[in-house]
């Protein structure tokens, strides 16, 4: 589990808007090992969704400004959508946000699968057996292929999309907010299914993007926290949740209410203020304005350094 599967270096992806470039992803460097499930956590505007999307498909407004992405030793041509076509679905795959609502309501699911496979040059008949096996694994019966999306529940649709995205055994799977719109009991089933995929070798490594740290705590090996387009902290799950070193991570963890904690007993606090605008991001550390530990060195941007094995932080106070 120590060979590196995904290596991202100095990735910069900006959004074109009327008012200028939004520096959504600024100089991001990290690795994901073979077989690792990495949770990518952050709040709105942190850039986590942009990061996930830029690894597979830059949409019309996004612009690759710099940096490289390497998967299994091969460089991914993320700036060229045509060239990326050869990698999508086979090497890198994504379960996009709202995927379960994106299925064409007028087509049967089986036809959807056929079309998708055909577009990749894979014959449906050839993978049929494997498809059936996987459907059974996620507890979907074979005749789901004969049904229309509207006949399935939210959890069933999500599981269907998960099977689809991993059908060709991609090396890297990006799961973008796959549990957000689900009930709490279905969330657990879906999250556990993701782990199952990794355990059975359907995917090698996974990036699970979410805003829900408690959920990703349950299934990820490491968690990476983003803030305002930059990486704040990355560490093995228990370390990040138990002993976070970045002030933002610390504040985030302590603002989460848990079952068993009541207002009368322990009053939780949020983080005052709002994240900076990424149109004209501030110089230095982007968390500076809201950080209780900020001092003058914070005007200079802290590097994302390894302070102990596998534990990276971008903070002058922590390193």
């Amino acid at each position: 589990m120590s060979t590196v599967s995904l290596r991202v270096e100095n990735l910069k992806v900006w959004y074109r808007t009327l008012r200028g470039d939004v520096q959504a992803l600024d100089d991001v460097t990290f690795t994901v090992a073979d077989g690792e499930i990495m949770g990518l956590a952050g709040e709105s505007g942190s850039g986590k969704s942009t990061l996930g999307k830029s690894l597979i498909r830059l949409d019309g407004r996004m612009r690759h400004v710099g940096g490289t992405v390497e998967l299994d030793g091969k460089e991914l041509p993320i700036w060229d959508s045509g060239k990326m076509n050869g990698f999508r679905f086979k090497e890198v795959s994504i379960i996009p946000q709202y995927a379960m609502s994106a299925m064409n309501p007028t087509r049967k699911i089986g036809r959807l699968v056929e079309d998708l496979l055909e577009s990749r040059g894979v014959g449906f008949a050839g993978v049929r057996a494997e498809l059936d096996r996987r459907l059974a694994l996620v507890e979907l019966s074979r005749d789901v292929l004969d049904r229309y999306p509207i006949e399935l529940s939210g959890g069933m649709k999500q599981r269907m999309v998960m099977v689809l995205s991993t059908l060709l055994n991609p090396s890297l799977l990006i799961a973008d907010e796959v549990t957000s719109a689900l009930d709490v009991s279905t969330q657990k089933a879906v999250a556990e299914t993701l782990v199952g995929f990794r355990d059975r070798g359907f995917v090698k490594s996974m990036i699970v993007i979410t805003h829900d740290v408690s959920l990703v705590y349950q299934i990820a090996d490491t968690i990476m926290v983003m803030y305002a387009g930059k990486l704040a902290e990355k560490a093995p799950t228990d370390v990040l949740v138990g002993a976070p070193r970045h002030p933002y991570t610390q504040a985030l963890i302590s603002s989460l209410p848990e079952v068993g904690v009541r207002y009368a007993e322990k009053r939780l606090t949020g983080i005052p203020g709002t994240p900076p605008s990424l149109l004209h991001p501030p110089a230095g550390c982007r968390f500076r304005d809201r950080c209780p530990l900020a001092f003058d060195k914070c005007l200079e941007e802290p590097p994302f350094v390894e302070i102990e094995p596998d534990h990276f932080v971008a903070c002058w106070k922590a390193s």
Partner: protein
Amino acid sequence: MLALDGVTKVYRTGVFGGGDLTAVRDVSFEVQPGEVVSLIGESGSGKTTIGRMILRLTSVSGGTITLDGVDVSTVKGGGLRGYYRKVQGVFQDPFSSYNPIFKADRVFAMIREAYFPGVGGAEWRHKVGASLEAVRLDPDQVLGKYPHQLSGGQLQRLLIARALLLDIRLLVADEIISMLDASTRIDVLNLLADLKARGLGILFITHDLSLGNYVSEKTVILRRGAVVEMGATERVFGNPLHPYTRKLLASVPQLHKRWEPLAAEPEPADGQPLVRAEDDHFVAGGVRR
């Protein structure tokens, strides 16, 4: 103060209204002043429908809703306006709650037009200032702005401030923090807890058990339109008796504690009557031994 008694909602479905869909089935509970009651359920549990019936946005098919003993389930017209002086609501999506082509503080102007037509400029500004202060918003930061210029947290608090302009007795908060960031959620939640100190009763509708546990005195657990367990929050969370409640609690992802495999329990059928299990703790179908 607010009491629901046997409230039911049935929707007509199918061509020519042949079929029936029971969204809410025989639900009864109360909200007292100065108390937060959590209404917890997954999707399809009917919790939003109950909120809408209390706010008279949806009609009641059966049962009664009473405010201070007066039946409000069918109030209309002038009576409805009077009702809205005492009961208001805040919804889930802050960006959908504001008409995007107008400024955000128009919601205040709407209240002024309907309920305070004679109030002068200076007095109104003072009133608005007091409301904003109660929700800890800076008037300079939020007045005169368009909704897209404000954050989700500010917009939700603005809606609470709007409700407070009316001196309400009950606030129906339907998933008001689900769409907010983790760091701002807790501030709005703390705000609700502070407001109950003013004697406000709050119905906190949510699917997130940890939020309900943090802020409420009483909890009502809904499944498929019916109450399966209810009572004091510590009792329901500390000693969950219904298999569905236990399943929910076991599925909530928690920090510092991994999911434990839960032995699958057979869930009792729908429509069981509530039975008192202990003081302030009721379970549908009674306690299984």
